[in-house]
């Protein structure tokens, strides 16, 4: 019993060391809007699932002191209520939990991804709407401009010859997820003038497909968005099927760092910059 109690007291002391926080500020539940909020130069009082965010998204980093309110799909409303924010920012994904948020503060719900609809126009609108609501109109316009510039750079940097492109995330040794037209990365490819070899997929709605599907588009360039499956690059090197893929055999494959597959404009800008940057990442 003794050690448990001591640990309990230590935990309490640790938690008590958190700085007391004045009421007010903004809480963000959706990750795409969280990275947008941070990119606008606003530090929220609270945000959801920050441990996983640090692993999957990473950039822009969340400053110390932002309170983690737990899972995006199951945020801790009790904790959120004690923080008493002025505004809770959610996306259409969390609309079904709106009543709970409305008990705490005004709710701003912005659409980010709708099945079958290109997401980039939605993200532009949502970025501007968020900028208006947070009094950061100039910063929002700067984000849009940075995105446009990254796309323009990618357009110019793109190798001539007009190869089609495929953007995938590796699920495991034998399966990939394809990023079609209604996804962030598919949208960037199309905006930069690529032909997406697998445009007609719905990432948000379809199953992972077998690796062999990629062989059908032998001429395409292959962009692999992280994270890699367990084993990482070493596992890929030992994967005979992967090595036999025509794109891999011909060296037309690029491994990219982990990016949020449902990210906001900052992630889209990063993706475009990574593609334009040329050298393979990590």
């Amino acid at each position, binding site marked *: 019993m003794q050690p448990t109690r001591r640990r309990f007291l230590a935990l309490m002391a640790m938690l008590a060391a958190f700085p007391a926080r004045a009421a007010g500020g903004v809480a963000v539940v959706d990750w795409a809007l969280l990275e947008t909020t941070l990119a606008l130069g606003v530090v929220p009082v609270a945000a959801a699932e920050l441990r996983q965010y640090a692993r999957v998204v990473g950039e822009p980093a969340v400053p110390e002191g932002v309170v983690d309110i737990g899972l995006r799909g199951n945020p801790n409303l009790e904790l959120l209520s004690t923080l008493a924010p002025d505004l809770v920012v959610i996306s259409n994904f969390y609309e079904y939990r709106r009543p709970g948020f409305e008990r705490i503060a005004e709710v701003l719900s912005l659409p980010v991804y709708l099945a079958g609809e290109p997401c980039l126009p939605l993200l532009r609108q949502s970025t501007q709407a968020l900028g208006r609501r947070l009094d950061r109109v100039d910063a929002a316009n700067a984000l849009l401009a940075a995105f446009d510039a990254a796309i323009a750079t990618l357009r110019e940097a793109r190798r001539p010859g007009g190869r089609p492109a495929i953007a995938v995330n590796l699920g495991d040794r034998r399966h990939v997820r394809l990023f079609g037209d209604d996804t962030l990365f598919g949208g960037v490819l199309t905006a930069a003038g690529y032909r997406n070899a697998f445009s007609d997929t719905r990432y948000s709605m379809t199953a992972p497909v077998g690796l*062999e599907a990629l062989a059908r588009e032998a001429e395409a360039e292959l962009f692999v968005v992280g994270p890699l499956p367990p084993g990482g690059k070493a596992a890929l090197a030992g994967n005979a099927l992967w090595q036999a893929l025509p794109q891999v055999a011909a060296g037309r494959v690029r491994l990219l760092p982990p990016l949020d597959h449902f990210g906001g404009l900052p992630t889209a800008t990063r993706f475009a910059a990574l593609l334009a940057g040329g050298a393979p990442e990590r």
Partner: protein
Amino acid sequence: MNALLRLTLIVAAVAILAALALLNHHLLLAAVSGEAAGNRAFAAVFVARAELPRLAMALIAGAALGLASALLQRVLRNPLAEPATLGLSAGAHLALVVVAVALPAAADYPVAVAFLGAGAAAGLVLAATARRRFEPLSVILTGMMVSLTATAAAAAVILASGDYMTGLFIWGGGDLTQDGWAPVLRLAASFAVVAVGAAAALRPLALLSLGDAEAKAAGLSAGVLRLMIIALAVWLAAATTAEIGIVGFIGLAAPLIARLTGVRSSAGRLLAAPLAGALLLLLADGAVQLAGHLTGLRIPTGAATALIGGPLILALVPRIATLTRPDVLPKAALLPRRPAGRVLLLLTGILAVTLLLALTAGRDAIGWRLSLDAAPWRFARVALLAAAGGLIGMAGAVIQRLTANPLASPEVLGVGVGAGVGLAAVLLALPLAGVAAQAAGMMAGAVLTLALLLAFVRRHGFGAERLLIAGIALGALLSSVLTSVIATGSPAGFLLLGWIAGAAVEPSIEAAVGTAAVLAALAPLALLHARALALLPLGETVARSLGLATARTRAGLVLIAGGATAASTLAIGPMSFIGLIAPHLARTLGLQRPVAQLVGAMLAGAALTVAADWLARMVAFPYQLPLGLFAALIGGGYLVFRFAGGARAA
């Protein structure tokens, strides 16, 4: 028998031809699709490193499942024993998921990890049923509970680890895709070792089948032999799960086919079962691939075999007459008997304290605290959980008395999983459906499942065993549908995973009032059946001779228990040990009469549910973990403590 033998031969021949046809078709398609893209090189690698190993894997894994099940069925003398129904596959799966997330370094030894998981599951099942001398129905019931719990725990772990787990998704549904020969060779080695071990155990096994007394007279330690053979079977089941995930029901069908071919010698049967298993899995996998090519739908092979296996159990029900042995029914005199009033008062007090703490104790950004501030946020939740816990406790008490089996629980009726299929249908049809539409879908699924169960059991008479077996079969069938949806890795799949793990959405006052109303309506109905609940455990004949119209009474009780399970499932998810433990706890505390036990089970169920939920929300604060995980931990602990401890004492 001659006609049956001929029929079987014909069926086998057709199966072989069909398998070959599917194989040809598939190899052709792969080669053509590769070549069409101008890619002969990839097509060649694909056939050599993916298609042919897959074919070999189907054969060897099917054989492994067939052999493991034949051994288990022989040793346990249980026609329903196999890796899936005993919880071995789910235990292995859970161990592999935990290791993949928490201890990636150990993921290099998948077979050893899987063996630990499967071994733990086997140990739990055997320890819990030792006192009932491994009576087949109890073994299967415990196995299914272990399986459901491991599934819930695995779902919780996958959820908590985020989006990394595409592989676990697919593979949980049983996936035969290969990218080389190493897994096939590994499994073949395990198969060879176990086959040799089984051959060595064959002669003593034959003696064992004459019965314990004869085996002892022959100077054999029956217990050690049985344990050795079970360990071999568990190893093979674990090795199979490590390579291809959970593939159920091959193990159920293969020994049955072996028996139907008319092979009589035990050596012949142990040879025929792996052969039948290999053929079956080859067929199932071919059918899945063909369906994939024709429709573009990816169905995990394991889900497809369960789809075949559910009806198979239902077809077997009339053949299974002797799953319970009258000599091992527990003697009520062994359980303590205490004044009901005092025990119920104690339980009420415990519930009151639990409710009070659940409403006021907790954490915030600063630390632990005890205050009334949180109560407005928690009131609806605590009320809903208490009502749902009361319902599931009551349902458990009714079902345990109805089936005269203290290991039966509401989960095995399949009603909860039926609710999940209803939820899946709603999520797939309307991806952004609100909470109300989701609840309606769950209700419809639960009601339909209950109707199916009633219709089936009515046809075969309301025997306790048939009710349980039909429930298990329905549950297996429906959970294969759920597995398929989850294996798509879509948002709907993710939501379903959350639901299986027992992560209820933020409850509303309306839901709490509704659930409490169901409890208020069903509890008096159950209490009105007190006399039937006292008589039914004594057996059909006694009940009938005392003037109980048993068929109608049983139907009524099934409806009450099913309705209560459905309502609680909406609130706390499909699986928890609470329906199993609460009535048990009531009896252990000395509440032997039906009315007292029912009320006691309701109180205990409410307190347990509220406590499990409070823990789930506080342990990883501010992350709110699934309630199902904690209910399973509490329940699993109770099972081990109670049954294994009891077995030692006996």
